[in-house]
């Protein structure tokens, strides 16, 4: 399989993709490779379509979320955004992360769902701004070095948002 994830869904390899197209083309592939259609097919064919179904699912999940989409765009350029040996991030960004983690910890301890909901909103604003930067860096300037820095931030944000959402679910 030489196709990349974007090609699989007939999308241009950009950060700012048409989510509707992604959705529609994913459903199309899903319908085509549905196991029910190959009940009587020979085994090698079944396996082939099972692989395609798995690939489509993986590709869809990757492209659907902005953080993983950005990370994948960098991978296509041969850049690893989350290399374990790269731990340098801007200090003010990390300070902010630490503050949010503190609010999260206190929110869980005090069972303050409202505080956590507000935190999610605050983070959403930041995420939006990072995404706008990525459209500019990936799609307009093709500045993959700067895009890597912003992508690392976005991955951080996705992780903290996810942790907050889980905390809210547990408190509800």
């Amino acid at each position, binding site marked *: 399989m030489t196709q990349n994830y974007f090609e699989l869904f007939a999308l241009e390899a950009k950060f700012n993709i048409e989510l509707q197209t992604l959705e529609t083309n994913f459903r199309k592939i899903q319908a085509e490779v549905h196991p029910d259609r190959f009940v009587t097919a020979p085994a090698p064919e079944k396996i082939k379509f099972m692989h395609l179904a798995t690939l489509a699912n993986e590709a869809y999940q990757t492209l659907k979320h902005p953080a993983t989409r950005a990370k994948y765009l960098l991978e296509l350029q041969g850049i690893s*955004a*989350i290399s*374990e*040996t790269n*731990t*340098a*991030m801007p*200090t003010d*960004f*990390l*300070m902010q*992360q*630490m503050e949010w*983690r503190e609010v999260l910890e206190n929110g869980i301890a005090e069972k303050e769902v409202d505080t956590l909901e507000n935190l999610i909103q605050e983070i959403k604003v930041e995420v939006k701004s990072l995404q706008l930067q990525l459209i500019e860096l990936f799609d307009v300037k093709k500045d993959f070095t700067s895009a890597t820095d912003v992508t*690392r*931030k976005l*991955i*951080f944000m996705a*992780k*903290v948002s996810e*942790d907050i959402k889980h905390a809210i679910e547990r408190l509800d």
Partner: protein
Amino acid sequence: MAYSDKVLDHYENPRNVGTLDKNDPNVGTGMVGAPACGDVMKLMIKVNDNGIIEDAKFKTYGCGSAIASSSLVTEWLKGRTIDEAYAIKNSEIAEELALPPVKIHCSVLAEDAIKAAVADIKAKQLAAKEAA
């Protein structure tokens, strides 16, 4: 995943949690982060006039291994010179805590935090020398 006894010990009784006065000219701060797991680590060291680390504090948000790695290095740092501190390798941390391969990056974070804190104190000292 099962944590080693040493990780559990540091995780349950972390040493030297807290902060030092970041405006103190003898205090260096190192902040590092790992996007993949969302870990953030802050390490602060206080250095005396002989270049020996007198105190070390940390604050880490992350998994047990990240907390244990930073707790352990604060113990190691006290009494060492900043050059000795800079020479600490993540493999020593990983070995001491018996970290599994998937948690090696936590020790990398701790090593980099030390290096960042030492770089910060050196930059502060240089700035002070130039101002004098």
